[in-house]
């Protein structure tokens, strides 16, 4: 079985996000970028499937500018056999991403498509679902556990009420949640080897994909600062303060 894994270049989770002074977006100047952590989990799961003999080949795919190749190299260091770089310099909406991933899927015909449940930059949580819908194949989102048996996958999903176990036919889109696994440390020799693994570069035109009419971001603003609290000495004071604020 072939496993396809999509990874996204995002602002590293350790970075304190700063909104640009003019509200036109988030400051990315000199900011550390990394592979989306949920995609790392998806990547780890794919590599484990390969190590277990369930998967024969792991292919990583990303959509982004030149620098997104760094994240593909990380994916290759994790253990992907080869990678596909869909070069797009503009912002990509979830629907456009899903269209691109659909085209890559159709070209590669994998038995399983793994990806993170959402990217930590825009938190959309849409691409996996849209890709499965466009492809007309099953989806198993928020996976906390994944078992492959022949052409079926059993997925334990993390849902609000607890855990839900479902069975889907393969090929399917499975999106990784936090508890699916703990990604390994990348080893230096693997990073060295990853430099020599093949990366195929394609454009949206090569794939015959057109961008979906996008969303327009009208404004970016930081969350409102928390106002300082006040200390009250008595219950009466508390009641008065609450009344004053119109809360009781």
């Amino acid at each position, binding site marked *: 079985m072939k496993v396809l894994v999509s990874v996204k270049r995002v602002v590293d989770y350790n970075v304190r996000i700063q909104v640009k002074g003019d509200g036109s977006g988030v400051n990315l100047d000199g900011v*550390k970028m990394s592979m989306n952590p949920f995609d790392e989990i998806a990547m780890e799961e794919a590599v484990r499937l390969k190590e277990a003999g369930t998967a024969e080949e792991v292919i990583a795919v990303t959509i982004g500018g030149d620098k997104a190749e760094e994240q593909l190299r990380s994916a290759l260091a994790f253990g992907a056999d080869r990678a596909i770089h869909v070069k797009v310099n503009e912002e990509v909406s979830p629907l456009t991403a899903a269209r691109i991933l659909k085209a890559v899927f159709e070209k590669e015909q994998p038995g399983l498509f793994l990806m993170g449940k959402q990217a930590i930059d825009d938190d959309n949580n849409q691409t996996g679902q849209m890709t499965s819908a466009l492809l007309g194949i099953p989806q198993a989102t928020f996976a906390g556990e994944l078992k492959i048996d022949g052409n079926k996958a059993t997925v334990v999903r993390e849902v609000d009420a607890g855990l839900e176990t479902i069975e889907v036919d393969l090929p399917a889109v499975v999106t990784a949640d936090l508890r699916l696994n703990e990604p390994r440390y990348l080893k230096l020799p693997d990073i060295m080897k990853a430099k020599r693994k093949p990366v195929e570069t394609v454009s949206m035109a090569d794939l015959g994909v057109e961008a979906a009419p996008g969303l327009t971001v009208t404004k970016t603003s930081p969350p409102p600062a928390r106002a300082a609290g006040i200390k009250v000495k008595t219950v009466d004071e508390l009641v008065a303060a609450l009344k004053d604020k119109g809360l009781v």
Partner: protein
Amino acid sequence: MTENEAVERDVMEYDVVIVGAGPAGLSAAIRLKQQNEDLAVCVVEKGSEVGAHILSGAIFEPRALNELIPDWKDKGAPLNTAVSRDDIYFMTGESGAFKMPGLFVPKTMHNHGNYIISLGKLCRWLGEQAEALGVEIYPGFPAQDAIIEDGIVRGIVTGDMGLDKEGKHKEGMYTPGMELRGKYTLFAEGCRGHIGKKLIRQYELDNDADPQHFGIGIKELWEIPAEKHQPGLVVHSAGWPLDLIGTGSLGGSFLYHLEDNKVAVGLIVDLSYTNPYLSPFDEFQRLKHHPVFKQYLEGGKRLSYGARALNKGGLYSIPKMVFPGGALIGCDLGTMNFAKIKGSHTAMKSGMLAADAAATALKAGGQGADVLESYPEAFKASWLYDELYRSRNFGVFLHKFGALIGGALNFIEQNLFGGKLPFTAHDRKRDHETLVPASQAQKIDYPKPDGKLSFDKLSSVFLSSTSHEEDQPSHLQLTDASIPIDKNLPEYAEPAQRYCPAGVYEVVEEKDGGKRFQINAANCVHCKTCDIKDPAQNITWVAPEGGGGPNYSAM
């Protein structure tokens, strides 16, 4: 090794292994490839990416860069803001100051032709140039130790990953470090490198040198209202909140107007300070309320925070540079020119000189066991030596005579004698020996932060984007765990609580009234001040798990 079984380590061989992707290490790497593109050159870096642990003012003198990459402008080097004006203030109190007339500014402080930059960004750019030449750079992999065999440095071993607090292997996560062997190894860890420190001791490199002297630089990056922003304006000050006349606490502050309404503001406190109650962090916070600084910062927003120790000993504190199989370069060696408050161009030059020496030796068939004697020889003949020679007395003048008188002596030396007074001053007291007992020291009552111009330590560290894996052995090691509470606390009121700019060290009161020394190692911004200033020399900084530490973006 923490567990008893022998660890199987992967091994890779290179011509030259470089420790640290800062200005010195990257310049050395680039130079090696320029000399011979077939050389196998590898750079390891403890930060999560190139530039993540770089912190500097910074005003950049392009002299070394002009030599290394003459067409840096065409290649897009991030030198965007030329210095347009130099203002120097002597601060007489919390609101008083007088501006030094241009005539009296020492030549070393003339910044015409220099640029205000983010050194982190410059290093990222240098990293790209190096990789384009075929240098292998591995961020997130700290050198844990040098490989020394029969007295010869043969490379380094990278840090182990996946150890828990007790140093035991974490199930399924343990990843042993790798041996990176080089015919020559260049150490460019920056000021007070943890391997450099050991090599200096083991090879007795500093036997003929004066003690190294240090400062701690604390820096913030601000975005200020456009109408207050003057790209290229450089402001320096000496005096308040530190001493102007006395010598108990020395240092100076800076405020540089970069591009895009950004300003870098900071304070350097000499680690020769005497009062154990002094807190460099709090001195910096109150400094920003002084009218000289407030006029620019008021109404602005703080974007980033960080701190780093720097060497300021100068020429006569530089240890021997070479040992069998390797060399020290940059601030690991101590090449900063403190009179100019600049170390980037000097670090780059030292890396280039060492690279030349290594490339020549390799060309002659050198296998690395030898000492790169041509490096110190080339250093002596270079402009770097000349520059450091001219500035050799600056730090000592200040230590002995204070900012005002020492500064005046420096003016005389620099402007009237061209840096060549016919004598050399020495300062042989080490920075950890300068504290007076707490009983003889005045407590300092620092004002509370207002949350607009001044802030507390924790919210500051937050802006350094520092992160470490929590479950790992502490990378701040006490030789004797009893010293902080039994000795440092009664004698010096445990100064670690105050000199650490990241709130790593706390003295915690227990329920039974006893006291406990707590080390919050995950907060550490890798400034190395504790390793330098602890009066008992009981704290040793070692590299934590790879990628840990601050994530500076444009510092």
